[in-house]
């Protein structure tokens, strides 16, 4: 193990480590802590310049305010409407593409695979004008499904990379055996491969959820109004209205951050497996 386990060091070093850990964490998360505290700070404190001292009270009313006086609830809902269909769509499509690319060594399969991989890394701006134009032409501009359809297509690239590598690592004998038995290809997919894909599905679901929830660029390009804007774009426009009202900005930020954070905490293992692309096993 590297570095040398701390248990093998002197007690002094062990103590030092035990103290350094929480201090390092505190410093690392200081920005988040600051925001979390500010989101509960009464507006009066900020007005008096009390930004970091003891708050005069806990102001849950900041949260009440943003829920009742701003469309933040609607934004959160819009985000859900975009995110959940995208997760289902991208994972569903990539299960099939990943299966096709992993199991059948057909001619050109590697090219198709590399196309998915390369497409996944292109800058969004090269897609922006045509995708926006197409979405407008199809009458899907400023709708959740217009945004979700794009996300499904784009995320399929990344998901295919992951699914294909995952299926490649499964024991191929299983599929061979089924073929010898005369099982049809789609039944092999449904009854043999799919049940083994649970960890991959979980990993990609949390990952795609986080990516899409946090997406800002496409939200600004493909949506406009309160009725369809997701939370990231919504927060940005609210920020424009709440000039220097940092208690509100903070409360909004915490709300926007909450779902992916919760998702990460619930499915940590899967999340990390997904992030490492399965490449750093």
């Amino acid at each position, binding site marked *: *193990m*590297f570095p040398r*386990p*701390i248990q093998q060091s002197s007690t002094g070093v062990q103590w030092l*480590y*035990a103290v350094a850990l929480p201090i*390092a*964490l505190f410093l*690392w*998360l200081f*920005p*988040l802590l*600051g925001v979390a505290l500010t989101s509960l700070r009464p507006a009066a404190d900020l007005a008096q*310049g009390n930004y970091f001292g003891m708050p005069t009270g806990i102001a849950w009313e900041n949260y009440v305010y943003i829920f009742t006086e701003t469309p933040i609830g609607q934004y959160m809902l819009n985000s859900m409407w975009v995110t959940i269909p995208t997760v289902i769509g991208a994972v569903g*499509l*990539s299960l*099939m593409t990943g299966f*096709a*690319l992993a199991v059948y060594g*057909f001619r050109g399969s*590697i090219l198709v695979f*590399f196309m998915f*991989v*390369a*497409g996944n*890394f*292109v*800058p*969004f*701006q*090269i*897609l*922006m*004008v*045509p*995708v926006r134009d*197409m979405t407008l032409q199809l009458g899907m501009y400023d709708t959740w499904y217009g945004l979700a*359809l*794009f996300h499904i*297509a*784009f995320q*399929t690239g990344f998901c295919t990379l992951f699914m294909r590598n995952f299926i490649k690592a499964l024991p191929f004998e299983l599929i061979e055996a089924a073929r010898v038995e005369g099982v049809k*290809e789609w039944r092999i997919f449904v009854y043999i491969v799919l049940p083994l894909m649970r960890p991959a599905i979980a990993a990609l679901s949390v990952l795609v959820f986080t990516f899409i929830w*946090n997406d*800002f*660029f496409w939200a*600004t*390009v493909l949506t406009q109004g309160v009725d369809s804007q997701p*939370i*990231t774009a919504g*927060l940005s426009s609210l920020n424009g209205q709440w000039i220097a009202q940092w208690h509100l900005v903070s409360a909004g*930020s915490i709300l*926007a951050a909450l779902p*992916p*954070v919760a*998702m*990460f*905490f619930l499915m940590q293992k899967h999340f990390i497996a997904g992030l490492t692309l399965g490449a*750093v*096993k």
Partner: protein
Amino acid sequence: MAEAAVVPVRKASRWNQRTLAPWLFLAPGLFMFIVYVIWPIAESITLSFYDWDGLYNAEGQFTGTYVGLGNYSELMTDPAFETSLWNNLKWLVLYMLALPIGLFIAIFLNQTVTGIRLYKSLFFFPFVISQVVVGLIFAWFYAPGFGPVYLLIEWMTGQGIAILADPDLATYGVIAAGLWPQIAYVMILYLTGLNNVAPDQIEAARLDGAKGWRMLWYVVLPQLRPATFIAVIVTVIGALRSFDLVSIMTAGNPWGETRVLSYYMYEKALGEYGFRMGYGAAIAVVLFAIMMVFISGFIWKMWRDEKER
């Protein structure tokens, strides 16, 4: 028995099934990907040779005019483009700091004391939250008069600096905000990598008297190469995709000094300065070309790995 007659027929149909099946499985995903990703790339490249305001005439026809390399030659003399390009370079270079820092934190956390798992996940937090939120947090931290960073600088030097309003410093302020989540990402890659470092090699090196930096450099780092490779790729892509933070924290200001290609493209094509789709597309093509260098490297490496299998 009838079976003997059936077998050859079934064989043929099985063969057909196996040639057709992959394409049927591919069809929906491939269709979506081509429509929304591959085709738009080609369209953007074409568009970069046109002057177009994004509108169609009453008959629904495209109203752009062909200008050849006009957009590109305009780019050559556009000072804002030059600033953006330089800033992209700053992003790229400084983002690479995420690698050593991420590795350092990973090594720091790679212990087995009680509660370490929780520590690891909390350290990873910045990556999970939206860049919009990260941008808002840092904008507040830099805020003149009361932001903690401002106060810290004031306390140390006696003179506070409004980082995001300073044309020389603003870009670095934005990059620092971007590094926070990026370091967390690199850290998690290295933590996973460290987990898989062969313990016997470490022990053998230890017996040979290797420790500290030498151990890290000659024994550990070579084993971390897969993690380093992915970390470089995601960091380069993260640096070149920097749109959210610029948009949230500075909107390209002060005086366009924090623009990067991705943001400048958006400004030109959809921003308040009017809809210059062709010019925007040309900027996007330049960014795409830069990105392609790294993408090709990644694909090439993957291809080599594929062949080794």
